[in-house]
């Protein structure tokens, strides 16, 4: 990054850039509440129905409204309870509340992307990550609709953030960050099943990279165990079974495969991710390896695990490949922010210094 001489100027510039980035980010999301109804792609109004039932009765419904109703529901309740609570507190219709909550949670995603990148390297990399976030088609598509996945896109990185903050050292004891990670993982488990699967895969793989560091291994695997236990308990309560193979999404292979370029029945990785992000992400990995930063393997596990889930069609599973791509892009934005910072640092150190050095050392005519 540009080595500004004044500390205050650096901090001020950072905040100016953050404000400059947050303005277009929010203004685009205001479109969600500008129309007579919220965007309806992705079953958003169905969730509003459940939220309306909660606000009317005070209970989480045991039976579905979907497909003629009358059967046990599969969905986890966090997002719906959050919207219903907000609706009750503000005395606003659940449909309008859903739109408002969409804006609030997408702002929280903005914050957590900055916080993780800042913790992984420094605040300037955080600003670079925010820049990549506001131009990301994939992250925008999933942060302009009132969906449980939206909350998942915040809760999942929040769990990882607590793991990042937990400086375990050699100690194998639980501390405040451990409890926060356990709590966040448990809420994630009750937010969105695909988010849970991504979190579980990321923590499992990260744990495998930390087999020699028992404290860090437990730092990853205790929240993992908590998330799986909480979800298992919920599914047994709601569906009376732990079996997921009979679910329509699995049986009928819901979701689109992700290929390099988009086609009629495939989502394009390049289109949804963007060449800029891909390039910066590669640079980010190189830079992280060069700097050997603390806990960088958590970021690698994030991208690696979500890549495996995105390409689950190659494993013969073929379920929601395109939805896992969103979590991969979210991780790439953080690493991409680090790559963008590395690029600016390189320009500053090796290009600007040479140019300005020549100007400053140029002979003065008398």
């Amino acid at each position: 990054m540009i080595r500004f001489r004044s500390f205050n100027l650096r901090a001020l510039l950072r905040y100016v850039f953050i404000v400059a980035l947050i303005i277009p980010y929010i203004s685009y999301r205001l479109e969600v509440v500008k129309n007579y109804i919220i965007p309806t792609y992705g079953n958003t109004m169905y969730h509003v129905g459940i939220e309306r039932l909660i606000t009317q009765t005070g209970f989480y419904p045991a039976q579905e409204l979907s497909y003629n109703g009358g059967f046990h529901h599969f969905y986890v309740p966090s997002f719906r309870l959050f919207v219903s609570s907000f609706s009750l507190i503000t005395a606003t219709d659940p449909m309008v509340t859903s739109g408002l909550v969409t804006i609030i949670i997408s702002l929280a995603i903005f914050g957590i992307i900055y916080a993780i990148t800042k913790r992984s390297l420094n605040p300037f990399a955080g600003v670079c990550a925010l820049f990549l976030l506001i131009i990301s088609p994939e992250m925008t598509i999933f942060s302009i609709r009132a969906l449980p996945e939206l909350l998942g896109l915040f809760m999942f990185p929040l769990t990882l953030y607590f793991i990042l903050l937990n400086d375990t050292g050699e100690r194998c004891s639980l501390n405040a960050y451990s409890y926060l990670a356990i709590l966040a993982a448990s809420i994630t488990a009750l937010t969105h099943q695909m988010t849970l699967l991504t979190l579980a895969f990321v923590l499992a793989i990260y744990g495998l990279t930390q087999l020699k560091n028992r404290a860090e291994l437990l730092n990853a695997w205790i929240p993992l165990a908590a998330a799986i236990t909480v979800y298992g308990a919920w599914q047994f309560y709601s569906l009376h079974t732990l079996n997921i193979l009979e679910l329509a999404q699995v049986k009928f292979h819901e979701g689109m495969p992700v290929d390099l370029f988009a086609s009629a029945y495939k989502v394009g990785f390049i289109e949804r991710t963007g060449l800029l992000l891909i390039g910066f992400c590669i640079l980010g990995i190189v830079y992280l390896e060069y700097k050997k930063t603390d806990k960088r393997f958590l970021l690698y596990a994030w991208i690696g695990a979500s890549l495996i889930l995105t390409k689950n069609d190659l494993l013969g599973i073929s379920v929601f490949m395109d939805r896992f791509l969103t979590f991969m892009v979210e991780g790439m934005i953080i690493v991409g922010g680090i790559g963008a910072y590395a690029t600016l640092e390189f320009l500053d150190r090796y290009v600007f210094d040479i140019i300005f050095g020549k100007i400053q050392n140029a002979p003065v005519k008398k």
Partner: protein
Amino acid sequence: MNEDRLTIRDAIAIPLLVIILILGATYGINSMKKQTDPWLDPVIMKGELDSTKWINENTKKTDKFQSDIFGGELIMGMTTRTAIVGGDWANAPDPVSNMKDSQKIYMTTSASEANALCKKYNLTYVFVPLNRNVYCGFGWIVINKNKFNDYNYFQLAYSNDDVKIFKVV
């Protein structure tokens, strides 16, 4: 050099960075919008939303609707009534049959066939959007609306510019 003062180098570098940010963000956001704008589409017409007020005031909580996925989710969202399709199909007993039959009710030319299918699912009302195609799970289709005018099988219960709601006889 005083560390707290702005240097010539900074005075050039900062505006340069700002220009790069503005140009990059403008280009990036415009190109992003081409992909993301369609996802903001409400699909549902204003009159369809208005009709949910009538549904709330004139139908029973237990009434069930023939609709497409978007119409069904509108009805669920605004009235908590159930619809033949729409919502989460994860644990539904036979969601694909619901989709096929819902599509058949809209597409068939036979009022008696549409009526029989409605009765199979205990559907009490048919939601007919007038200004958009419908999606029951197998692509967007055009509704064959004439059959709903056969008063032996369907009776008009509500209408506005965007939607008609028929009671199943």
